[in-house]
């Protein structure tokens, strides 16, 4: 009697856990559909000819694949020159964000200078500041020194220690024991040497995360190039896609979707290669810091 109870319980528990597993899978699949369907629809449209785009009911698998959409679509948005524009800007932004946030993050977590706490709070405070506040005054500065319609306003801020990345760096560095620094200082290392020779090698996951996020930020940015860059030759891809949508409203959707898909590809590739860095970077925003 005493023994049969737990066995019965265990059995029903097993049953319950199996059915709860099945329910979980079903719900997971239900939510996965709206996440993935738009992308499949995009791929399918990008491969259709112009008539099938308007077919009702839609052809999910095109009767006739029109791969040439990609070539034509890319020419339409002058893809390659804009691709290299965006790439140059994005790479410079990545370099700038890493250099500046390592430098500032190191100062805040390792160097005792007067006002250190104050600067740390200022950095946190400026994370809360809505970006719209600085848009117009900063625009005025850049245009009055002749940098309107250049890439500089997109690149310079990356070298000026973005508050979020500096905060991440500071959090990450404060998890590294101070004894490493002290050992290096005993050997006569300067702060610069401690940073570059001791801490940077230990910050590799942080640097990778920041590189991915900074690249994504620059590749995706729309408002800054929209405000600063008028010359179509200097447009970024985001600007080119956006302007095209407002220009040729809804005629060749298959071409647009093909071009749009190619614009997404670098991000998709980086995502699949560096998935963990994406998730880590965002996960580290929680209050307990990077684990």
């Amino acid at each position, binding site marked *: 009697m005493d023994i049969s109870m737990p066995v019965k319980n265990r059995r029903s528990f097993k049953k319950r856990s199996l059915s709860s597993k099945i329910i979980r899978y079903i719900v*997971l699949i239900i939510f*996965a559909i709206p996440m993935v369907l738009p992308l499949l629809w995009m791929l399918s449209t990008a491969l259709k000819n112009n008539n099938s785009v*308007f077919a*009702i009911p839609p052809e999910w698998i095109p009767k006739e694949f029109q791969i040439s959409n990609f070539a034509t679509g890319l020419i339409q948005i002058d893809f390659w020159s804009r691709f290299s524009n965006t790439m140059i800007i994005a790479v410079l932004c990545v370099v700038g964000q890493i250099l500046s946030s390592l*430098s500032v993050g190191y100062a805040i977590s390792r*160097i005792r200078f007067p006002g250190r706490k104050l600067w740390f709070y200022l950095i946190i405070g400026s994370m809360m500041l809505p970006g719209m506040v600085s848009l*117009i005054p900063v625009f005025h500065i850049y245009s009055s020194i002749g940098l309107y319609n250049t890439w500089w306003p997109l690149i310079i801020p990356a070298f000026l*220690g973005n508050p979020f990345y500096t905060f991440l760096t500071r959090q990450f560095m404060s998890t590294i024991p101070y004894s490493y620094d002290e050992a290096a200082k005993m050997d006569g290392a300067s702060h610069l040497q401690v940073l570059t020779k001791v801490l940077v090698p230990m910050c590799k996951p942080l640097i990778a995360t920041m590189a991915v996020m900074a690249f994504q930020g620059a590749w995706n940015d729309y408002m800054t190039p929209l405000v600063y860059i008028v010359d179509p030759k200097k447009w970024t891809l985001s600007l080119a896609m956006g302007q095209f949508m407002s220009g040729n409203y809804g005629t060749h959707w298959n071409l647009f979707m093909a071009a749009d898909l190619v614009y997404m590809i670098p991000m998709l590739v980086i995502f699949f290669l560096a998935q963990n860095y994406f998730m880590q970077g965002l996960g580290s925003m929680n209050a307990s810091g990077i684990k």
Partner: protein
Amino acid sequence: MESESSTKTVKKGKFKSKMAKHEALVGYLFMIPTIIGFSLYVGYPLLTSIYYALTEWDGLLPPKFVGLKNFAFIFKTDPTFFKSLEVTFLYVIYTVPISLILGLLLALLLNKNIPGIKIFRTMYYLPVVLPSVAALVLWLFIFKSDYGLLNNLLRLVHLPPVPWLESSKTALLSIGLVKFWGVGGTMIIFLSGLQSIPADVFEAAEIDGASWFRKFWNVTFPMITPIVFMQLITGMIGAFQSFNEAAILTKGGPNYSTYLISYDIYQTAFVDNKFGRAIAEVWVLFVIIMIFTILIFRFSEQYVYYENDSFRK
């Protein structure tokens, strides 16, 4: 004996102060990026825009002081500003809570180590990585009322088509859908929070025979309130400044039904060249965001649980 030790400390003190000076110098050298960045992107804009908000200024000629005329105009004469405030409020109230609930729900679903869970995690997060413009261009096509994906699906189940972006009744609801498509960003932060809850907390609840809901409401949720709070703040600040949705999907239309305040500010400044008035609008937005932030902070003091109290101060 006493004098000797005192000279020693003086020497030591001198040495120390020299070191401290050196440290301070090096510290400020390392801080240069932030010092310039903070001055340029925070200090200067905050200080000057108070003045600019009180001027008539086209960005080219020197600003002309006009007192509170800009504020009088946007609140009394300008028909679009109030509309944009109303639309933005609706958008924030509509998207922020749903994003939080949906994000938490998905995170709870994913927070179980079962086979294939990583594939689902990737699928849910995928829309977040896409460039916002690329995603919006895709959704523009999905929303097309005649041959877009959504109405095709409705047709499949014999429901009447919806004029997604083309009617002032549905446009704001529709642009919210795009935001919910990117809920993976909120989800992943909740997920990392859930995974950092120590397992023994649950074991205790399980021994007590707590139901799933009780475990969630009495154990899980209190543990992640700091993350809920942080997401509420960042989500709210972000939603108040949403721009791309209006700029790419609707141009603020139809009939100003998606005329989000950031889009209004952009139009006023860079299309109508009214910099002074646009900065006045920015100030209104800024004050609203601050009020909301303070309210949420106040509210959170009662409900947010901090495991480590030192985090608060």
